[in-house]
């Protein structure tokens, strides 16, 4: 007769198998983004994640096993050895405090090492790889779009970050309104984007590719639509793209920027391109925030319904 606890375990094993198959179905594709670093910085982050997990599992797996073993072995029904007076052991105490302490020293050293390597302000992992002068990109978040300004090229984009491969990219970031978080999984370390403050970030990708970036810090009603595409292209393609954007009819002076920075939900994260951009636009935004410029958000922000959903809703209203 299977004990009731074991019966429950076999009862759940089939659905659990199904669930784990469902979860692992994405393993073969790149959907587990954090497992697939695309540049040296993300590789460092991934490397230290593995190190940390392995070290911790060295301690926690034996404990987990011990708990399961003791639960089974010392169950009252099994009549195993019973020692009600054993409640202290100096040797075990020294081990319990000592071994984790050594582990923390080791992990602490790894923590320091990795913090220097992927420091957003000056990642030491990049210094060695630098050959070209880095590309400067200024990032400004509004409610709720990403504006990428290329001060050296005099162009700007909305929700589209285009950079050449094999060249370090230095970012300066600020916000017009509330705090956001610059995040491109697989590519760049996260850094907060704050109004009236300037932060920095840096990365360098050696292979062409397309990635997605977004804000990781809640910023209001349009937050869910704050994605931006990140395109790593060859240097030739990059120069061509810059020339093409410099010929763009749309201009972005500070007055137009102020218009752009009004609360806008960019459903679908549609990109836009501007030429004739003031190299000093970033500083103007920063100084304006410092002197009290705000972009108040109304209590209700209308979300433009995407055309397809509107048609579907209209269709269902008729049926």
């Amino acid at each position, binding site marked *: 007769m299977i004990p009731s606890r074991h019966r429950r375990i076999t009862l759940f094993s089939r659905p659990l198998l199904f669930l784990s198959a469902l979860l692992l179905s994405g393993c073969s594709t790149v959907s587990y983004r954090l497992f697939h670093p695309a540049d040296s910085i993300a590789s460092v982050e991934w490397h230290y994640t593995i190190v*940390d997990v392995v070290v911790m599992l060295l301690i926690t797996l034996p404990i987990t096993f011990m708990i399961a073993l003791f639960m089974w072995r010392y169950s009252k029904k099994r009549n195993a050895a019973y020692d009600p007076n054993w409640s202290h052991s100096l040797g075990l105490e020294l081990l319990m405090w000592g071994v984790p302490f050594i582990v923390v020293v080791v992990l602490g050293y790894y923590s320091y090492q990795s913090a220097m390597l992927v420091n957003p302000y000056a990642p030491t992992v990049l210094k060695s790889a630098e050959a070209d002068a880095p590309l400067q990109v200024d990032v400004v978040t509004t409610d709720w779009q990403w504006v990428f300004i290329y001060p050296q090229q005099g162009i700007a984009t909305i929700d589209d970050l285009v950079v050449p491969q094999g060249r370090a990219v230095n970012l300066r970031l600020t916000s017009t309104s509330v705090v956001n978080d610059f995040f491109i999984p697989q590519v760049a370390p*996260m850094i907060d984007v704050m*109004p009236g403050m300037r932060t920095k970030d840096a990365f360098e990708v050696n292979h062409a590719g397309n990635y997605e970036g977004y804000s990781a810090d809640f910023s209001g009603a349009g937050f869910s639509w704050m994605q931006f595409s990140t395109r790593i292209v060859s240097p030739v393609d990059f120069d061509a793209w810059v020339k093409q954007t410099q010929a763009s009819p749309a201009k972005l002076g500070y007055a137009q920027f102020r218009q752009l920075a009004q609360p806008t939900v960019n459903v679908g994260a549609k990109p836009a391109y501007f030429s004739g951009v003031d190299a000093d636009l970033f500083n103007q935004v920063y100084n304006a925030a410092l002197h009290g410029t705000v972009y108040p958000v109304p209590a209700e922000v209308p979300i433009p319904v995407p055309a397809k959903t509107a048609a579907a809703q209209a269709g269902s209203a008729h049926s």
Partner: protein
Amino acid sequence: MLVHVPGPWSPLFGRLTLDSIPYSNPIIIFAFAFSVIAGLLVLVPVVYYRKIGYLFREWLTTVDHKKIGIIYILLGLVMMFRGFVDGMMIRTQQVMADGPHSGGVLGAAHGYLPPEHFDQIYSSHGTLMIIFAVTPILTGLGNIIVPLQIGARDMAFPMMNAISLWLTTVGAMLVMASLFIGDFSTAGWVGLAPLTEVSYSPSVGVDYWLWAIQISSIGTTLNSINMIATIVGMRAPGMRWDRLPIFTWTTLSTNIIGLTSFPILGVALALLGADRYLGTHFFTAGLGGDLMLYTNLFWIWGHPEVYFLVLPAFGIISEVIPTFAEKPLFGYITMVAATFAIAGISWLVWLHHFFTMGAGPYVNTFFSVATMLVGIPTGVKVFNWVFTLYRGRLTFTAPMLWAVGALFLLLIGGVTGMMLAIPAVNYTVHNSVFVIAHFHCMVLLIAYSIFAATGYWFPKVFGFRLDERSGKAFFYTFSLGTAVLFIAMFALGFMGETRRLDYLYNTQWMPALVVEEIGIGFYTLSCYYFAKMLYVSIRDRVKNRVGADAWGTSRTLEWLTHSPVPFYNFAVTPQVNTRDELSWRYANKVADVQPDHFEAFHMPNNTVVPLLIGILGFGFGFGMVWRIWWMAGFSLLAIIAVVIYRSFARDKGYILTAEALAKLESANKPLGVVAETQYLSESNTSHMAEAEAH
């Protein structure tokens, strides 16, 4: 001087208008109908059985720590249920709103909740669960058990205890009011600046959140003073510090954290309130403000706060495991040392909540190492629990299952916490659902220990055991939900999903989101088993009646007195001889010894003052939220007047005479919490005397 807020304002009603009531929102209408029906289901029997007087005399005006604790726990459980419904709504929205082609109903572009509504739901989920569910339940448990464990008759300040209770209830009622009148904060339970400034949160939502937390924090701080004074000053003779039960030790360290950290939250919210009401610039982006200051102040409170929640949970596990392993707790002195080490180090780690804010590698490394150091005493606790199991005689009652389940959750939470403690790793998972899964493992371990404590101490308070079969079914379904939901959430964290999204743009996440929804389904099923457990237990209460020691293998002082505990706790204050006093008495065959005579002692009277302060506190909070200045001002002045009036009061309580005590002790009728203490005055008036007023 007063900051201008958008929208109408009138001197009589402040910002309140008929439009503040969301009568066009079908979800809120449903919630309102549900709440009204639930309220009527409670109120109608009370009126029908003519129990309003009883309710007022025995519960609403009580100063008895056990009744106060029970009301705390009931409040917490109801708020936990609402918080759970919020969580269910979050999960359902996310599974429905995945991808640009996902449909929208009820006026939402995707899913069924427009962003403003969704944002309020996750904000209230966090606020309710942390501040109004877990905190009241743990406070209630401490209230009931600690005086019993140290052999005292009540807390050091019984009336202040009741004031703490009603102030906490006021905070919860403000959050409930925000559901039906106005709206709640959309900025999360943390409420980072400048999102919570008037420019970016112009409605009353943030004000509701601010005053709910501010008012209940006063209650929590007063409770901390009370607990510390009780533990330090009211221990039974012989209860030396090295004999104190471990749950009392953890309660002491918890309340030291509480007393010292809650004022910081008060300051942070007061400064934010000044920004929102007086137009100052403490946390605005410009004009001299520093938004980082809010983040730092909030988390300087916020990290000790989570230890404020988890240390009592550790204390509960430390009581339950020895009882059901029939062994003393392994390494008692180290456990106490580890508790205070955790409490102390918890002050040094707050920056790990915002490694990405750009503090630089040196500062980040300091806080990283400090965070990892806190894992050492926590690990010591886990080892000690495991060694308590070793060579014990384990019985797997429902409380024991919950305690061991908490242990497994602590291990997973610990590993993922150590991952988050390293800045380089943190830069990839900050604010992602990986962090959410990590801290839910931790708060779920607190929930597990709450359920363990409820099952463990229920027989002590009410005199009968909870039904084991449905209790275990509750445990298994709840644990299944936990496993399914959070494994999927960790996976989503590695897939790069961030938090607080009402619309998800990545359709690759759909399988994992469906798995999470299945997890919520198991949680919902577990609610049924919880209700069933209560129903069956109450139905079978005579069959499951227990004596003083409900489990037979209990070790601490609270199991010495009757079950249910009479209103005076102990007829004679026990003399304590050792740690684990009851086990010692069993071993030396003196557990059944009875007192040879009784002595009179003093008991406090019930009073309506705490309830009055609570009602006026609600008036103050509501008035401040809606900027109804006359209501807020009048309430505040009235509170001050009531307190001054009470300080002149001649009511010094009453003396319970030795004869009355002997009669109560020998009577067959159980004297527990639901009994009428009026029963005493009706039949024993000649034996009780009012204390002389000086």
